């Protein structure tokens, strides 16, 4: 087997994995928009197979067991005139881990902060998710508060903390795996090699290959 093929395969796998993880984090982590709320309402919304992943599961949403249900929405406009529509749904208790169950209150707060273009009241909307019109999916608003102005700078503390924690977990998993390999697998492999003199070349090569997938050290 050519070494080039493995290099390409490895890098393709790594890039796909990186894009998947980056997209996943971009979808899940909170983001802040500074907008003006123009309208709040609810409407019957049909959730299909292509976009149900971007909506709450039925038992944490507003109705059970149907694909058409009433969902709250918040219409907004940015300072530059572009618009954004948020949905406002409970998240439930598993994923995404916002544990949000105050959608009604949030809708009332958003309605209370409504303003028109002549008298704008700028609002920070914390949300996660994407607005993709082709799939009819909307970011889910998590919190609203009044902004000091349309140019307010927001430091994404939650994202910083979450990313640092994730990095820590990844480093710990690698260290635990390395320790497991060094203390458990390698001594066992050494025993096998001693017992089976003829097979050990192949076994060593095989384990070396597997190990190469998981670590770059040595």
């Amino acid at each position, binding site marked *: 087997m050519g070494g080039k093929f493995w290099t390409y395969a490895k890098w393709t796998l790594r890039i796909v994995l990186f894009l998947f993880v980056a997209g996943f984090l971009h979808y899940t982590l909170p983001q802040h928009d500074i907008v003006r709320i123009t309208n709040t309402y609810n409407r019957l919304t049909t959730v299909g197979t292509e976009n149900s992943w971007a909506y709450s599961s039925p*038992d*944490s949403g507003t109705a059970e067991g149907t694909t058409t249900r009433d969902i709250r929405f918040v219409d907004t406009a940015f300072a530059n005139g572009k618009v954004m529509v948020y949905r406002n749904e409970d998240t*439930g*208790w*598993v994923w995404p*881990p*916002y*544990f*949000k*169950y*105050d959608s009604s*209150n949030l809708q009332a707060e958003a309605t209370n902060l409504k303003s028109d273009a002549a008298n704008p009241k700028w609002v920070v909307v914390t949300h996660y998710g994407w607005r993709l019109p082709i799939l009819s999916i909307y970011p889910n608003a*998590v*919190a609203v508060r009044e902004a000091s102005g349309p140019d307010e700078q927001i430091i994404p503390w939650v994202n910083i903390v979450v990313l640092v924690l994730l990095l820590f977990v990844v480093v*710990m998993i690698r*260290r*635990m795996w390395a*320790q*497991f390999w060094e*203390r458990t697998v390698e001594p066992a492999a050494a025993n096998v090699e001693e017992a089976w003199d003829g097979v050990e070349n192949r076994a060593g090569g095989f384990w070396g290959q597997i190990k190469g997938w998981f670590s770059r050290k040595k």
Partner: protein
Amino acid sequence: MIGLIRLAVFGFVALTVVYLLVSIYSRSVRRERLEKEWDSDPAREGSLLDERAAFIEAGMAAYRHSLRRKLIVLVYIIPMAIVAITTYLVNYQ
């Protein structure tokens, strides 16, 4: 509400798995350090394997009562605190 109970049950199971893995890792790191400590000490060259085993066992016994081992319980506490803080900030602020 049933969702919260589900989270608590599955979360507890998952955190128990993490707790066990971290315990095994921590113990393994300590044992390795004790082995290296013994092996790298020139004064102990040529000493009996029994002495080495006794030294490591004494070290592991000390580890069992150490603060480091007890701190592994943070594996349960930190995620639970994060869930509680998130729930509070999202719903009551």
